[in-house]
């Protein structure tokens, strides 16, 4: 039999590096993948283990194939199959009922960093059409410290330079980031090239020794949640030793004097007491940072702390006063953990934003969007994700979750699960019956990545198109189609007249000015995509802030910043710091990677890393079953006694059950919770 193999160009569905490859498709099934060396792609044909195994999960027998209606208790996971028309009818009726009884502000929506740009845009549009601004996405626990901080200082959070500038840097500072495991292609193609081929120096700041650590000449190991102290001390050193870029500070920043005043107490000796890092080491790193062209790579180690916002502000200040921005050979910015983090953020998935990037409270911006969309937009600021969870059963009666697994990813997950039970009605649209979906009243089967056409935006602001390579299983449908059909059922069909994702992207081109040039036609012809802001086809922006910043006066606004303690510190009862990390073979809550046999086989289970000195104190050996406890809960895991974590700190991968232990206290402004530094204790469990 002659079977035609089709090479379909796709973007990898895991992290945000934006690797491209070909899915070799035969009659709607992906037979294998092929590496794409021909195009000027970011990965140069290379892929990490997740990328190579990336189509395994779509063939899992556990995929959702029909809409489901809950028959058992919430959380029990008992469902019966229903038809699409019945599912739409039930959801539409419930939305109408809740709107009539409590008003549209009782309904909340979650977008996702796993669905396409077009689909996030539709989630946003549908929530506004229904009349609610309670809109967020699980990325709230991802970049929401760094992003608002960089916006406050530079007016925009996005990465300033393309990845190729990392390879040109003289100093690579990896702070609370583990790119060798979370983004191996980025590490191999850019960081390693800088260090091994171009002679760049590398500094790692992390309580753990991560995979990339062997290339570093300096490794600082602060206690989790105390990095802010080091950042403040670095500011102190750079200012007091007058190592800052005088011209840059004078011409392109405001607020230097206030910053100088704010950090004058924060000496490296002060930081040493808090973080446990020798003062001289902090001085050394500060001097290097100020005198070299620096690529600063930060991620969850910065973000997932309640004091992460202050920490990110301090780093943004540091970047500004050392002039490591707006030129070649430097790099800084947000680095989303998922391939579509930017898709959700740039389509305005936030309680206070419009897709145009303006605020919902901005009357003129609202009026403009109302003209484009044709319906009234609510003017109040909605709730963020943690507040939504807190208000479940109270202000929030119904939730519509697209591709999020908050029952596992949100902090203090036992509490989250109790809260989910309080909802009157929950709809979850996903590809698997996730922990969250088990609490749903209606579960809608969605098409996975590779089973639909759509746009992804990578960490370096690269906008790329990925195409349909496989057919969804059973009756599963692409998320955009589900949203369009539901809108029709709700009587909102006139605003959702889309037959193909291209039509949605064309609407985005006209609604979001930054993406005017990212047309379906241009992206089809240019697989390497374009860098946003791309105002005309072919006119992307590779390096940001070459001249001005995106603030009102075009200058960087230095922010005075003060030391802030983590919300929970070790004490006699819970004497250890617990932190989390990611493994190269798994991704987020494992919904997809646990269903990839090649990955599950190599990275089978969770464990806790304990320093040999702590292990000796508690009588623990490698392989022992131990109980890790915090004030929220406990988990049983195997111990791995290793020098790779500093004394006083224990670390667990974040793909399994660590969020039973974490803390839901949030930062008052950014609403970021504490996922990475909580007080814990550990003891051996007799077998």
């Amino acid at each position, binding site marked *: 039999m002659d079977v035609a193999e089709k090479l379909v160009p796709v973007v990898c569905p895991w992290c945000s590096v934006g690797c491209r490859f070909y899915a070799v498709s035969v009659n709607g099934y992906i037979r294998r993948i*092929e590496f794409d060396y021909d195009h000027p792609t970011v990965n140069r044909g290379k892929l990490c283990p997740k990328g*190579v195994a990336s189509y395994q999960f779509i063939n899992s027998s556990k995929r959702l194939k029909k809409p489901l209606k809950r028959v058992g208790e919430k959380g029990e996971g008992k469902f019966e199959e229903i038809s699409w028309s019945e599912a739409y009818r039930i959801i539409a009726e419930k939305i109408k009922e809740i709107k009539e009884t409590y008003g549209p502000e009782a309904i909340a929506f979650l977008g996702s960093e796993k669905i396409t740009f077009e689909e996030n845009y539709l989630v946003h549009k549908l929530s506004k059409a229904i009349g609610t601004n309670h809109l967020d996405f699980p990325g709230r626990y991802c970049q929401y410290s760094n992003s608002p901080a960089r916006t406050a200082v530079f007016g925009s959070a996005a990465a300033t330079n393309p990845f190729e500038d990392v390879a040109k840097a003289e100093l690579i500072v990896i702070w609370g980031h583990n790119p060798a495991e979370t983004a*191996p292609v980025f590490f*191999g193609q850019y960081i390693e090239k800088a260090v091994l081929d171009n002679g760049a120096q590398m500094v790692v700041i992390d309580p753990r020794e991560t995979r990339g*650590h062997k290339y570093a000449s300096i490794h600082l190991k602060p206690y989790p949640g105390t990095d802010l102290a080091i950042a403040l001390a670095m500011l102190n050193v750079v200012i007091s030793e007058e190592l800052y870029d005088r011209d840059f500070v004078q011409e392109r920043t405001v607020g230097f004097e206030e910053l100088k005043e704010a950090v004058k107490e924060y000496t490296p000796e002060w930081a040493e007491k808090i973080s446990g890092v020798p003062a001289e080491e902090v001085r050394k790193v500060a001097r290097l940072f100020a005198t070299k062209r620096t690529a600063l790579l930060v991620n969850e180690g910065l973000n997932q702390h309640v004091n992460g916002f202050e920490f990110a502000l301090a780093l943004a200040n540091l970047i500004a006063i050392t002039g490591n921005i707006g030129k070649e050979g430097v790099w800084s910015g947000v680095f989303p953990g998922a391939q579509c983090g930017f898709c959700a953020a740039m389509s305005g998935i936030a309680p206070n934003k419009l897709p145009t990037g303006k605020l919902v409270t901005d009357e003129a911006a609202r009026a403009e969007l109302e003209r484009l969309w044709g319906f009234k937009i609510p003017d109040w600021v909605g709730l963020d994700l943690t507040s939504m969870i807190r208000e479940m059963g109270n202000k929030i009666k119904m939730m519509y979750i697209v591709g999020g697994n908050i029952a596992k990813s949100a902090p203090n997950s036992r509490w989250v699960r109790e809260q989910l039970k309080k909802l009157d009605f929950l709809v979850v649209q996903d590809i698997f019956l996730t922990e969250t979906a088990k609490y749903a009243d209606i579960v809608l089967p969605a098409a996975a990545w590779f089973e639909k056409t759509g746009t992804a935006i990578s960490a370096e602001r690269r906008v790329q198109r990925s195409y349909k390579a496989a057919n969804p299983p059973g009756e599963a449908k692409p998320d955009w189609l589900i949203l369009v059909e539901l809108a029709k059922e709700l009587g909102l069909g006139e605003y959702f007249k889309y037959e193909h994702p291209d039509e949605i992207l064309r609407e985005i081109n006209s609604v979001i000015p930054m993406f005017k040039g990212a047309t379906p036609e241009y992206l089809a012809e240019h697989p390497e995509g374009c860098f946003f802001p791309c105002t005309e086809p072919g006119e992307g922006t590779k390096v940001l802030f070459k001249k001005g910043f995106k603030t009102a006066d075009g200058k960087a606004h230095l922010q005075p910043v003060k030391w802030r303690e983590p919300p929970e510190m070790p004490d006699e009862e819970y004497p250890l710091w617990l932190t989390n990390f990611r493994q190269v073979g798994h991704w987020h809550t494992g919904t997809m990677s646990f269903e990839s046999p090649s990955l599950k086989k190599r990275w089978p289970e969770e464990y806790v890393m304990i320093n040999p000195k702590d292990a000796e104190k508690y009588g623990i050996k490698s392989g022992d079953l131990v109980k890790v406890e915090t004030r929220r809960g406990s988990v049983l895991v195997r111990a791995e006694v*290793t020098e790779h974590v500093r004394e006083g700190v224990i670390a667990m991968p974040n793909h399994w059950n660590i969020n039973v232990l974490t803390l839901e206290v949030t930062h008052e402004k950014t609403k970021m919770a504490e996922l990475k530094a909580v007080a814990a204790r550990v003891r051996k469990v007799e077998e």
Partner: protein
Amino acid sequence: MSKKIFLDYKRCIGCKACEVACEMTHGEARIRVFEFPDLFTVPFNCRHCEKAPCMNVCPTGALFRDEDGAVAFDPLKCIGCLMCAVACPFGVPKLDEENKIMDKCDLCADRRAEGLLPACVSACPTEALKFGEINEILWNREGKIVANLKGSAEKGEGEKAYIVL
């Protein structure tokens, strides 16, 4: 001279992309990443020895050297006698228990026939795995060392010269 897979261990970060790529191609991974406690990682596959003992001891001629110099095997001739496994100093040939025949790296014969690189080399995100002839690889390294020594000498920093392996 035949082409082989060479390892630049300095570049390996132990991500196991090679293992997974091999597994996706052949059903079982024929390359394995060894991890050591000091973050040192080494991916290891069949060396396709110039004087391959496995080939010498194979009683049925199932193991043979193909046009590119890889020690490939013909599954139809293999009787699963395990002689190759006994003879291999690296413990490379494995028994496919279901089919009772041996399984080993053939440098992705199917891919090479299409002009493609072996799957593990294609995937390796850090380019720690290289496919080429020994002399080409060695000259490349030597060239780098010379360039580095020369560069340091020109800057008068002879003592700072380092050897790129």
